[in-house]
């Protein structure tokens, strides 16, 4: 044995040129370079993916943060009684007959008067051009205000109205003099006037709560579109998902972890759960359309249908998380409970479940967070429809048309007016804030209550 080894060692040693062990041979240099390269690829992959993530978030944040600010015109406005209440008896039923056209005239006249008083004018600009700087949304709002309180007719109020989306875009740098020349919705003169208005303090960009509270608006009024209905719809859906998904998911996990005998039915359940976790989300949308809408007759684009679809999608996530945390409870706890005479059901509900609760809670929050961002199945059940009135309070509101935050993002991205891209990114910011809050909550819960046995 030793001889063989010795002779084996001797042969290559004589063939190799004599060099110091400290000197790097060509082969060693090549191998070391390969080592460095390999490691660099790994670092590059990580840097690349994180940079892409950062780039994506930064583009969306910078596009969207301006949606929270909105250009508004502020001027004193006389609510002329001749136009708004021709009969002069402040009778609401008669005043209803005045359409937004009449209010448009009042707005335009008041705006023009203020411009003349302040001495602001741009050569070659028609009166219509000046009036067109006020959002089409303003007349409707003013009408609602007057009809709610007819007595203000004839007085002069301090009005703050939205400027059009193009003027707003000009203040935010999205619209420039060059683009205005090619744009039929805005003229360069209007932009010059906007500059003067800004200097005079009539036109200001202010924080826009309406973006979070108001419902969606039509294609021509991007400046008035808000997320109110979408946030409410998402909240309704999360509520129903919470109510339906958690009991069912926890019950299923308890059965599978603690009671299920090893038989065909149990195997079938296991296989189904792991498959459902991998089914594309759009398939759940088809299921919702066929079963909940066409078969069960639930109303189209209502939050209950959306929530039921999301429940079925979230169920595997919650079951997997719950089972993991039930499994993490050590068997000694179970043995101790059974040993002092608890029944199996008492052992589970009095001891195992409370100890598994933090894990279940964390899994639930993460499941809800993924359900909150889901879009595709909601498109199929009609939630992309234009909804501009709020659903009523629960439970009746669950059956009324609503929309959801991610669907609103998609809906706005599909509109032709570029102002809606800003709105869409702004909606993503709101969505991401909700997601970050939920994830941070899950992390805090895990840190606070996690128990290592």
């Amino acid at each position, binding site marked *: 044995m030793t001889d063989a080894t010795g002779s084996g060692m001797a042969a290559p040693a004589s063939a190799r040129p004599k060099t110091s062990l400290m000197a790097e041979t060509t082969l060693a240099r090549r191998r070391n370079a390969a080592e460095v390269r390999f*490691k660099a690829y*790994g670092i590059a992959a990580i840097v690349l993916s994180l940079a892409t993530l950062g780039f994506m978030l930064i583009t969306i944040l910078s596009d969207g943060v301006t949606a929270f600010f909105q250009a508004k015109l502020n001027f004193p406005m006389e609510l002329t009684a001749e136009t708004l209440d021709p009969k002069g008896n402040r009778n609401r039923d008669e005043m209803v007959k005045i359409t937004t056209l009449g209010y448009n005239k009042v707005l335009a006249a008041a705006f023009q008067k203020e411009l003349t008083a302040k001495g602001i004018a741009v050569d070659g600009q028609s009166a219509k051009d000046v009036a067109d700087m006020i959002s089409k949304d303003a007349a409707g709002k003013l009408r609602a205000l007057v009809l709610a309180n007819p007595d203000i007719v004839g007085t002069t109020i301090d009005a703050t109205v939205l400027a059009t989306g193009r003027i707003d875009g000009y203040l935010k740098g999205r619209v420039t003099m060059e683009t205005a020349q090619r744009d039929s919705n805005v003229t360069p003169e209007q932009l010059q006037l906007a500059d003067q208005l800004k200097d005079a303090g009539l036109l200001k960009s202010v924080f826009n709560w309406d973006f979070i509270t108001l419902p969606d608006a039509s294609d021509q009024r991007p400046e008035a579109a808000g997320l109110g209905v979408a946030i409410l719809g998402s909240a309704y859906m999360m509520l129903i998902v919470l109510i339906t998904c958690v009991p069912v998911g926890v019950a299923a996990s308890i059965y599978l972890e603690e009671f299920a005998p090893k038989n065909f039915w149990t195997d079938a359940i296991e296989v189904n759960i792991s498959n459902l976790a991998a089914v594309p989300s759009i398939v759940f949308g*088809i299921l919702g359309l066929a*079963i909940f809408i066409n078969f069960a007759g639930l109303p189209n684009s209502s939050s209950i249908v959306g929530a039921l679809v999301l429940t079925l999608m979230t169920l595997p996530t919650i079951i997997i998380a719950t089972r993991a945390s039930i499994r993490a409870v050590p068997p000694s706890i179970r043995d101790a409970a059974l040993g002092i005479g608890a029944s199996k059901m008492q052992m589970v509900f009095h001891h195992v479940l409370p100890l598994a609760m933090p894990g279940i809670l964390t899994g639930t929050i993460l499941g809800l967070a993924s359900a909150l961002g889901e879009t*595709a199945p909601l*498109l199929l059940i009609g939630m992309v429809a234009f909804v501009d009135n709020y659903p009523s309070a629960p439970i009746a509101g669950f059956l009324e048309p609503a929309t959801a935050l991610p669907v609103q993002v998609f809906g706005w991205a599909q509109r032709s007016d570029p102002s809606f891209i800003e709105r869409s990114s702004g909606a993503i910011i709101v969505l991401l804030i909700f997601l970050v809050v939920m994830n941070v909550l899950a992390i805090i819960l895990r840190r606070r209550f996690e128990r290592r046995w």
Partner: protein
Amino acid sequence: MSVLLLLVIVAVLAMAGFVLCRQRVLASVQGDPKSLHSLPVYYGWHGAIMVLVPALAALALWLMIQPFIIENRIVGMLPPSMVADGSSTTLVMSDVRRVAGGLDAAVAGGVMSEEDASLIRTEFTNVRDRLASVGVALGSDVSREVLAAAQEYRVMIAWGAMARTILVVLIAVAGLIYAVMISNKDFRARNRVEQAILGLLIAASSIAILTTVGIVYSMLTETFNFFALYPYQDFFFSLTWSPNFRGDSELGLWPLIWGTMYITLVSMIVSVPIGLYAAIYLAEYASKPVRSWVKPLIEVIAGIPTVVFGLFALVTVGPLLRDYFAEPLGLGNSGSSVMTAGIVIGILNIPFISSLSDDIINSVPQSLRDGSLALGATKSETIRQVVLPAALPGIVGACLMAASRAIGETMIVVMGAGAAAKLSLNPFEAMTTMTVKIVGQLTGDSDFASPETLVAFALGMTLFVITLALNIVALLVVRKYREQYD
């Protein structure tokens, strides 16, 4: 009586059951719970369960069966010419329901008395105008048969509601009486209650199976409807996709499969190398603090909703690729393209591949690495020639799962890939996928009797089968690999 009110009554009876049973059993032992078989609260729960379960089961069964019986009776009343085939039956039934609803509204609005509503005849009154006056718009004049059927329908609904209430309340009371009678100190209430809970647990876990059955059933029936209207040979073997809502569409599957596969391929070319190298670095090279920071950061990508990636594709990636690659190279001028969608899906899949591969690389036994390093291999040689081959089946499984996610991805392709069904090799051209067309054919006003709508279900079925097959293969591969080292 409405269902909601009925539920309230049942709930009240259940509470009564809880209290009565508990009191009765405590009274039977003169307030000394030690001589009872179970804790007093179990007797209470037994009472509540005996009220709730049979009554709610009866109610659910009634609500499911009643519409079928009523529809059968109504269809039997109508002349055979009006209900010649399935679709005209549906139309007539919806007419009947609308007229009946109109009569209900008229009665509720005080325009008609209950007697008027059941006696009104088309010969004497114009029903359409009468109903229009209470805000119920009817498309056409009401025929004599439909009005008679609607009146009969109202009678049957009213009768059904009454019978339902009586039946459910009777069953609930019977359950209550039974539970109260049976409650004595030797009765094994706890065992009964635990059995009922176990039943609930089993039912909850069976929902997973029900969901799968629902998915398969709903898609299969509609797919068969589709193939009844459109020849399956054309669907599976035609190379053109040009739906036309006036009829005469060509609905060939292959352009969509090609678009899907092309986009998936691009996404895999992006995600596999990046994900794999990231996983290798994290598993083999990274120090503990680096790992504990970088791994969650990469997983942040997985937590971002896909619609955000969709907007990123639409607003940023698409124009970028168009301005810097497609137009200078003369390959096209479209922002939405296979490249746009593929690259963004690839980014979405990086964390998926990296965390699965990371787990798999970590589960390769350390002894293999030690052996290789002891032979003088460098770290990268060890990884390339020992660790990766050992982990290969698992990594292949992870890649297959990522591919199945890319195939099923919807929002990114809807916003970034375009809508034109084409068989082209140019990656900068807009192409479309199965998921895009499912969304396209099913959103908006859809008519569930036309092949243009129903084709979405056939596409959904195809998608379901492909992703399911990929996932099963991936699971088998991963499981086989796990067994090797466990």
